[in-house]
């Protein structure tokens, strides 16, 4: 599985968040890829995946939007697209599933693709992977250990995957396939990658728990309480850092950490970093190179203390 040449050069779908609030994730993902000798080729003229907003109004349109990105990927000659955002990853996988199982989705996709003047995407032509799959399957833990220059030793990490990386189970047929595959109930790829980079992962019970992201604007207080609970649980488990692999989760954790202090008077000291930032620093990249200075959660003193500043 590790060392899979198929994933050495893949199409890249950053999605909208990585061009805005998740810029540090984009930056660190690209920097890590470069350091590991992996190529990312951004999809030309990509569009929004439909996120939650379009899906909540018409899921067939959402399927089409993701199908268009998959169509462009195929037209560019790629059979694999990597999406580092859980929302984008989820929607591409869902489109793949719907186009394979739902006649109405196929019909709408045919109609809109024809109207838009591009090739109609057919299920099975492109494999969607997450940034975690990309690193785990192309480089693997042994490959990471060989390349580590600044071990993450001494950093205790609670790995937070969020809810969309593994749900709903049926759109991720490659998961839960036994040893080596990702688990939908206890995901571990981020744990594996960061452990290989020297980090000490803590046993964290809320790694796939809801952060209230969908209601961050309409019901901010619930979102703040959910995030606060995630952060306090991570601290209670002994973590210094919550590692994230999704820009929405990451931003939600950062923003509601600040809001919890302001609105609820509850301060948590745990730092929030993208897993690509931690991995990048372990590979010898500077904190600035992986965008640590762009995070709201200021981890610089912790990283300096651990010899990674």
């Amino acid at each position, binding site marked *: 599985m590790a060392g899979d040449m198929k994933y050495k050069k893949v199409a890249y779908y950053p999605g909208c968040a990585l061009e805005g609030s998740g810029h540090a994730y984009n930056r660190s993902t690209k920097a890590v890829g470069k350091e590991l000798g992996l190529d990312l080729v951004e999809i030309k003229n990509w569009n929004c995946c439909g996120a939650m907003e379009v899906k909540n109004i018409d899921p067939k349109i959402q399927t089409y939007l993701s199908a268009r990105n998959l169509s462009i990927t195929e037209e560019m000659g790629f059979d694999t697209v990597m999406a580092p955002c859980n929302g984008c990853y989820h929607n591409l996988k869902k489109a793949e599933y719907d186009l394979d199982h739902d006649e109405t989705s196929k019909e709408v996709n045919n109609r809109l693709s024809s109207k838009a003047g591009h090739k109609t995407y057919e299920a099975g032509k492109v494999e969607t992977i997450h940034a975690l799959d990309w690193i785990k399957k192309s480089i693997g833990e042994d490959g990471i250990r060989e390349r580590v220059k600044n071990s993450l030793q001494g950093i205790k990490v609670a790995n937070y995957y969020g809810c*969309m990386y593994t749900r709903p189970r049926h759109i991720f047929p490659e998961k839960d396939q036994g040893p080596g595959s990702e688990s939908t109930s206890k995901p571990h790829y981020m744990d594996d990658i960061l452990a290989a980079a020297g980090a000490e992962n803590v046993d964290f019970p809320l790694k796939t728990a*809801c952060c*209230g992201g969908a*209601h961050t604007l309409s019901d901010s207080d619930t979102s703040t309480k959910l995030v606060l609970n995630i952060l306090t*649980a991570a601290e209670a488990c002994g973590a210094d850092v919550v590692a994230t692999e999704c820009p929405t989760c990451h931003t939600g954790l950062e923003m509601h950490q600040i809001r919890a202090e302001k609105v609820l008077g509850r301060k948590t000291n745990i730092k929030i970093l993208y897993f690509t930032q931690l991995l990048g620093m372990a590979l010898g990249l500077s904190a600035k190179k992986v965008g640590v200075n762009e995070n709201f959660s200021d981890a610089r003193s912790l990283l300096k203390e651990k010899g990674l500043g």
Partner: protein
Amino acid sequence: MSAERLTIDEIEQRADAIIAAPDEDLAPRAEALAAELLSMSEVILETWLVAKGQVPTDDKHEGFRLIALHRQAAKGNPSFNACRETCREAVYHHNLILHDPAADDIARTIRVGAMVVRHLALFIGGKLQADGLGEFCCSSRPIRQADAAKTETAGAMEA
């Protein structure tokens, strides 16, 4: 303490109290607290089911009523799977406490278990509050699923 008559808000407050309690209050009552935390988790799901007009099951799945209640609530409602692992973690922490109630770090285990229950309370409480505004979940079914099935929007674009 029985969780039988507690509301979700009261469960949240009870979880807060357990989390804030000193080690010496928690450790001697580890087994009772394990049972209480599991019972509170069941009450949270019962509250959801009753609000949805269902009769909460008394069955057990994998040896636990909580898992059976989750399965009942998730039937036909995929967004409810967003708390599947939280329910399983509640069972896991119950078992972990009972596995070695005299463990040196038992108070910490109880507190983390209470945080799991608090998360369940917050999630289900949020879902109940937001009902009518749409599903409280990123993986939810769409608000206008019935309309969407007719692909009205797609039809409109075609027109």
